[in-house]
């Protein structure tokens, strides 16, 4: 009887070991992932690359970056050339939905897994997509993004607002604007007095802001909402040059300059952190390449609203790109951590990012103190 119990115990232990061994996967160190997006001409792209590189380094992945020169045709041509390089997978930031659909087709035809980040290829992956190799689209929550901008406008007490937005045809940009409108339309006293839809660069930010300044006298306009920090800073520059301190600029994306302006009170509000989707997409692709099925095909990152009250924390923790250390990155991958919950982390990060950054800062301080003490 005793022997039987011992045997049974051993069997249970061996089963446990077998299950654990099955759960553990030997991490591949030879993976080459290509990245296709736009040129590094705005903070979103720059930050996305920075974070993605950190994640790649933590996971031991070789990351090759390419851009599409902001052209739909070149987006597809570049995707073809990248596929000819035979990478293990592709992370792509589709310039437009039609260009993204062509890349998805190429992935299917060439059996190379890929993840779209930042912009949607199809509105709803689970209902609109039937392929096998385009495995997921990791984007930001455009509705809540727009709503946050709208709410910031309401909270600041602006009544007459103009906007400068991406030229029409970019699904994400239009979704964000719909989010803004959904909030503004709930307040009858807020009036949208002018719209500009064009390429978002500094020159156009300046150009349209100057046009609005010329068109509206003080008291006729309170704020200009500008999508993207590059154009937003251009508008800020135009407003400052014209001495129109009656006009506030509300923008998105946060780089060093935006952070400085928010800190100085020149910019009221911005919203960011959505460039992290690149790194999250890379973790998802990395897990998939190790045999883990995709848990959530369309996780949405909620953006981080930033104003004077939290800009210092944001600048300290998120501006440098490498927000997560090696251990934290690996903890998000099921290859290294069977309990990893990447979709949950993506969903929750915007709610507890300040605690996350503060804890990280405290840990660093303690490490520094310890090393000083040792010295």
């Amino acid at each position, binding site marked *: 009887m005793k022997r039987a119990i011992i045997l049974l115990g051993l069997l249970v232990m061996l089963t446990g070991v077998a299950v654990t061994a099955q759960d553990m996967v030997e991490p591949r160190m030879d993976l080459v992932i290509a990245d296709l997006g736009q040129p590094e001409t705005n903070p979103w792209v720059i930050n996305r690359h920075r974070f993605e590189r950190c994640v790649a380094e933590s996971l031991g992945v070789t990351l090759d970056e390419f851009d599409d020169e*902001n052209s739909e045709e070149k987006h597809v041509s570049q995707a073809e050339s990248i596929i000819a390089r035979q990478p293990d997978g592709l992370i792509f930031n589709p310039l437009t939905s039609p*260009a993204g659909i062509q890349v998805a087709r190429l992935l299917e035809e060439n059996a190379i897994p890929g993840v779209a980040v930042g912009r949607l290829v199809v509105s709803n992956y689970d209902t609109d997509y039937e392929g096998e190799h385009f495995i997921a689209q990791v984007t930001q929550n455009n509705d809540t993004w727009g709503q946050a901008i709208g709410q910031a406008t309401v909270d600041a007490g602006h009544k007459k607002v103009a906007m400068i937005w991406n*030229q029409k045809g970019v699904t994400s940009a239009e979704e964000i604007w719909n989010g803004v409108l959904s909030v503004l339309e709930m307040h009858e006293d807020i009036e949208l007095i002018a719209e500009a839809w064009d390429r978002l660069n500094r020159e156009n930010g300046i150009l349209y802001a100057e046009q609005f300044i010329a068109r509206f006298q003080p008291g006729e306009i309170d704020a200009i909402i500008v999508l993207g920090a590059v154009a937003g800073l251009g508008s800020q520059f135009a407003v400052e040059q014209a001495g129109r301190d009656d006009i506030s600029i509300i923008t998105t994306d946060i780089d060093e300059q935006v952070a400085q302006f928010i800190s100085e009170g020149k910019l009221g509000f911005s919203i960011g952190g959505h460039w992290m989707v690149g790194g999250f997409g890379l973790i998802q692709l990395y897990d998939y390449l190790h045999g883990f099925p995709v848990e959530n095909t369309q996780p949405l990152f909620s953006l981080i609203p930033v104003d004077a009250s939290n800009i210092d924390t944001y600048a300290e923790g998120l501006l440098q790109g490498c927000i997560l250390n090696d251990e934290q990155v690996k903890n998000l991958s099921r290859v290294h951590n069977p309990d990893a919950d990447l979709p949950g982390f993506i969903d929750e990060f915007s709610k507890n990012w300040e605690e996350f950054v503060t804890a990280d800062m405290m840990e660093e301080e303690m490490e520094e103190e310890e090393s000083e003490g040792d010295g």
Partner: protein
Amino acid sequence: MSGPEPGLGVDASEEARAGRSEMLRNNVPYIAIVLVVLLFTIVSGDRFLSVRNWTFIAQQTPVLLLLAYAQLIVVTTGSIDISVGSSLGFSMYMAVLGMVWLGPAGIVCGILAATLIGFVNGSIFSLLKISSFVTTLAMLIIVRALLNIISDGGSIYVTEQAATGTYVDSVAAPWLLALGRFPNILIFALVVTALMWVFYEKTLFGQQLKALGGSERVLSLFGVSVTWFKIQVFVAAGFMVGLASLISLGRSGAGTPRAGEQFELDAIAAVALGGTPLTGGHGSVLRTVVGALTLTVVANGLTIAGVDPSWSRVARGVLLIIAIAISLNRRRIGVVK
């Protein structure tokens, strides 16, 4: 025994040297493409030479090639058309919109739209005597804006099967998608190339193009209405853009407000790489093919080699300058503008 006269000897050697220079200039596009292919073969080997990669190159080149033909027609006369990118996007959208309205036959709306834009370009340039650069620059802006207005920022997709509500705006045309894929897209381009060669090299119109680029006065002395001829030149170029729009639509699978952006620069670069001087007077269909192919292969090869995108653009720009610097016959060019 007396030797040759010194003066004659010098003339002969100068002539021989000039002949060698001329031969080198004429063959620069061919030498360039061979060198480019050799370079990338050494750097990237199997991946660059793979059938899959050359299938991609065969899909990437035709749209640029047809736009380069449109540019070649105009550049040979000493003018330029920088509206071809906007015109391509507009005619792609009109083609797919025409299919939504009229069924498959509606695709001709794309060719008609591009031809009409060519007619307007030619009319403004010829009748109002506004330089081709300024005229087509204005049209580049106007046509892109019209595209934005008509599309309202939306895209119309070309699908394999009739849509079931996923996309609001779509049209089922599997034959068009097939046209945009290898080998059909290549066959289409080869047929157009053959017709273009006959048109450019063997017809009176082709000869008159070169004559106009050489001297407008000479052409008028032959009794040709230069004003009308210039309009016809832009109409012919517009028609070529219309043909490009068909395969571009098949390749991209959608008419979008951003289609064709920046393509005008690539089309000009392809013509220039083919050794056609932007001052006009002469040109070559075959060398334009090589120019377009070189541009495509260089972009493709640099990506496969893993060159940083910004450096890739620097390399392409430098190649363009070197190729043109070698291929230019400076003795034929009186003024550099």
